[in-house]
């Protein structure tokens, strides 16, 4: 057992941090700065991070889910509004279906409405991470994978990652995946979204700490009052537990069999989903009146956490998966 990151993994984390700290939105107003967003998108394309799950030798992914989680976490910390979760899952589906992509088409995935399930039985689905995307991959319950054009109206619960409904009857079949492939893809989705939640928590805590040290009331920084300090300490503990659960989940995606990988990732996702809502609510609370205004970034973190939570489900669906994993229900 040695669960330390390798030197390459640490370097990867630093390189993502370097990009997102430079080009991510640092204020709510910068979300509308298209020149900045374009530069971020170009940097992400140039980095090759979206290719981490492309097929390498023997169709194994070129990098493990640990690397994917490292990138997802750092992008979330910096509120990156360049797609990552959606394209990664589309790449994974194409790898598992042995269906190569057209490099000119930007692709994401669509999930069952409410987003908690990967497989879509019906006519409509919801595409996630749709900035710049042309098409979304949809998995039917029988494992058929189709490509669907993205046309529907935008919804912006998450200000950094709009979703759009798609009409699956317009889909063109691109391949087929098996039941184990679906489970593996679900595990990867849970690991990436857990990483997204961890990064979101880190960003929200950084933002809030800075404020708690500067904002003064009764002649002192508000962070010096125990009632406020204990909220922030709680937030930090939630983050540490989530990061710990994530480390194992990200490793489990490729190292364990499909069923155990799903159990490990659903356990981590449940933990991080509960934690992230709590942490983002603390961020808003500590910001006080300012925290309840649109201009404060705290709600952007909360909104990002809400979307990451819903993709493959938050607390409820994942506790159900955890119980199923030990032979109860499911």
């Amino acid at each position, binding site marked *: 057992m040695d*669960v330390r990151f390798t030197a390459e993994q640490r370097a990867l984390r630093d390189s993502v941090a370097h990009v997102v700290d430079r080009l991510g939105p640092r204020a709510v107003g910068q979300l509308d700065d298209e020149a900045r967003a374009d530069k971020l998108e170009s940097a992400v394309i140039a980095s090759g991070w979206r290719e981490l799950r492309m097929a390498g030798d023997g169709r194994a992914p070129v990098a493990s889910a640990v690397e994917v989680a490292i990138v997802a976490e750092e992008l979330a910390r910096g509120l990156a509004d360049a797609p990552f979760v959606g394209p990664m899952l589309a790449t994974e589906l194409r790898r598992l279906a042995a269906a190569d992509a057209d490099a000119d088409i930007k692709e994401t995935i669509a999930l069952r409405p409410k987003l908690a399930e990967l497989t879509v039985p019906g006519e409509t689905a919801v595409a996630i991470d749709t900035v710049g995307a042309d098409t979304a991959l949809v998995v039917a319950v029988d494992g058929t994978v189709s490509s669907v054009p993205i046309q529907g109206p935008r919804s912006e619960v998450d200000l950094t990652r709009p979703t759009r409904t798609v009409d699956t009857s317009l889909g063109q079949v691109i391949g087929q995946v098996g039941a184990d492939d679906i489970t593996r893809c679900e595990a990867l989705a849970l690991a990436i979204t857990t990483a997204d939640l961890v990064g979101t928590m880190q960003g929200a805590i950084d933002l809030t700490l800075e404020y708690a040290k500067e904002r003064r009331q009764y002649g002192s920084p508000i962070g010096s009052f125990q009632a406020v300090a204990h909220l922030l300490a*709680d937030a930090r503990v939630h983050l540490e537990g989530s990061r710990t659960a994530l480390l194992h989940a990200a490793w489990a995606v490729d190292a364990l069999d499909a069923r155990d990988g799903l159990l490990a990732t659903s*356990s981590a996702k449940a933990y991080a989903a509960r934690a992230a809502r709590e942490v983002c609510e603390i961020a808003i609370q500590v910001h006080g009146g300012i925290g309840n205004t649109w201009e404060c970034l705290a709600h952007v973190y909360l909104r990002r956490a809400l979307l990451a939570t819903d993709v493959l489900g938050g607390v409820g669906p994942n506790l159900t998966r955890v119980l199923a994993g*030990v032979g109860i229900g499911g």
Partner: protein
Amino acid sequence: MDFRDSPDEAEFRGRLRAWLAANNPHLPASSTSDEYWERQPDWHRSLYEGGFFGITWPEEYGGHAMPSAYDVIVDEELARAGAPPRPSLGYLVHAILHHANDAVKQRFLPGLINGRDRWCQGFSEPDAGSDLASLRTRAVLDGDEYLIAGHKVWTSYSDLADWCFLLARTDPDVPKHKGLSAFAVRMDQPGVEQRPLRMINGITREFGEVTFDDVRVPAANMIGERGEGWRVAMTVLAHEREPQELGNASRYTKTVQQLVALVAGDPDEYDAEQHRDLAWAIVEADMLQRLVSRRLSDRLDGISHGAEGSIDKLLMTWVEQAVGHAALSIAGGGHDDGDQAMLNTYLYSRAQSVMGGTAQIQKNLVASRILGLPTT
């Protein structure tokens, strides 16, 4: 990055598993009955003699100088076999290793590690709980001995102990953190009086109070230098906050496995709320096992966690109390039909947010030392 065993680790795990198949004493759940504490010293010696306790400590004191990862394997296998947890002594061992002179180490560490000597920890006093540095037990030099007088309370294991790891004031005229020293004090001598305290779950052999009425202690029994007591105490407390040191993960996992068996045996008997409590207990206990792996891996880089121990202590508290809530809701409710051991497991879980520094003190430490928040 790999959570799996190396070949050497797998070999060790196999040996331990075989040993446990023959040597599991099947004690009652820890800290839920006095029978547990009566039989625990035998378990300590048996585990040591089997070669599975104190394995990461130096060979000269009876350890095997193995990497810390092996303690994770011990905890996992004890939980898997439903065996008792390994004894929680690491914090005393670390404090003696780190602060004491060679003579003190040679005298006390072997017996502490091999289970020959039982130790209790005399820190808290009736008027010095969270504000430990204000303690009033005094130690006055008289020739080559110290005369010790004072009152210790909430003393873990005082009932069974041969020795007390005592914190006393040797210099009343300097600032309160600077006038303390640590001692090894024999419990079976005139002037030492031990009285058990009954915990809220009914057990009487884990927790007590001790009075010292001008007890003579050789100056050679001082642990660390005169005036170093606060730093010694901080070393003890830092390690007492670390789940990897305490071996608690196996205790929680064992309870969770029992609860899973109950619910899986008759799922319809349990409602949605009970299912949810169980699922959270599984998720929390999973997380703590991974935390232990993470921290022990960090030690390979020589990283030891000071202030971060407070985060780990809070995480461990949340886990123990989630498991306690599941034990209460699934098996141990306030009705006569409940499983007494599960009810006692729940009641004992309330102590985790107090022992080794309250949750509120830990949050103060996280805020000031890790988050860098100003203090008023």
